[in-house]
């Protein structure tokens, strides 16, 4: 009797952990199928784009229960790359990211709301420059399925615009450059 109960508990435990595992994805950092890009207006005359080269994270997603989706991402702020060493040095310094004091930026989701098959609204806490703020932005599922090498992948894109001043970055880049657009293109491999 006892033995049977124990095996039932173990089986239930396995089932639950199996379910959780089934929906967990690791961002494909190793294969670089994930990108965190940014763009900001230069003087109001053009877009300046760049990216963070080093970040990592995980997400959970299950087609049958999309609203339970979660994601967290940790960005190495010093990995900012705008294709110009002098500018990157400035961006890493105290006027902007202050990467010595704030080496990490994080995003941790708190809510996902599915709107239709491929679109949803993601809410979470973005910590940047030591300031935590809740942001909400639209997310699009690009696709999911088996990859040719025996794995299972799912990918999403999202874009949001943040006001630099909201995160304590108040270096004056001019009236057209108060906001920066963050673009996330994330592909995860199912664990």
């Amino acid at each position, binding site marked *: 009797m006892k033995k049977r109960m124990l095996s039932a508990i173990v089986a239930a435990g396995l089932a639950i952990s199996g379910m959780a595992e089934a929906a967990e994805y690791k961002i494909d950092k190793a294969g670089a199928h994930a990108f965190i890009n940014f763009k900001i207006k230069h003087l109001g005359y053009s877009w300046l784009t760049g990216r963070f080269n080093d970040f990592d994270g995980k997400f959970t997603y299950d087609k049958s229960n999309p609203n339970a989706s979660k994601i967290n991402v940790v960005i190495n702020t*010093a990995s900012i790359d705008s294709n110009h*060493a*002098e500018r*990157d*040095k400035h961006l890493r310094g105290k006027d902007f990211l202050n990467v010595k004091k704030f080496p990490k930026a994080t995003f941790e989701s708190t809510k996902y709301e599915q709107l239709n098959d491929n679109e949803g609204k993601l809410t979470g806490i973005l910590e940047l420059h030591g300031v935590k703020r809740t942001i909400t932005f639209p997310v699009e599922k690009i696709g999911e399925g088996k990859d040719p090498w025996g794995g299972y992948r799912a990918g999403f894109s999202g874009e949001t615009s943040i006001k630099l001043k909201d995160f304590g970055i108040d270096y*004056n880049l001019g009236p057209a450059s108060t906001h920066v657009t963050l673009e996330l293109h994330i592909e995860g491999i199912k664990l």
Partner: protein
Amino acid sequence: MLKNTEKSFGVVAILIHWVMAISIFFMFGLGLYMVELTYYDPWYRGSLDLHKSIGMLLIAFLVIRLIWRQINVKPNDLPGSKLEQTAARIGHFVLYALMLLIMVSGYLISTADGRPIAVFELVNVPALPWSFDNQEDIVGEIHFWLAWALMVSVAGHIGAALKHQFINKDGGLVRMLKVNKEN
């Protein structure tokens, strides 16, 4: 006149000493000033271009200066104890080493992404074919602190020159200002 003698520095040595001294003081001030300029300041870009251009010229001056020093007679040491003369030699070595390291580190900041340095928009000094991770940040920090170290060393250098001139009264300052013609 142009060359050094055992008793006196020549015109070339004196001129290059002062051109570099004035330029380096200017560069120190410009360096501290330019990084504080706001994005919309008309000097935001020009100040950096000027700093880089003068820096590249200073490397050329330093190389010429070191060669000139090698192929010329070195004027006799000023009178002083063995210890003072050794200290003077070490001090001068430190000044040269700091100047070289500051100039090279400055070059490595701006060329970290492979871009050349434009010297007064006339000549491009190319970047090295290799670089290391976060080069502009690491070398930037070094550039900043070595510049301060140079200013401290220069203060010692000026102090020593003034001591020679006004306490020892051996003409330590004047010999870097005019050529002694009695040979």
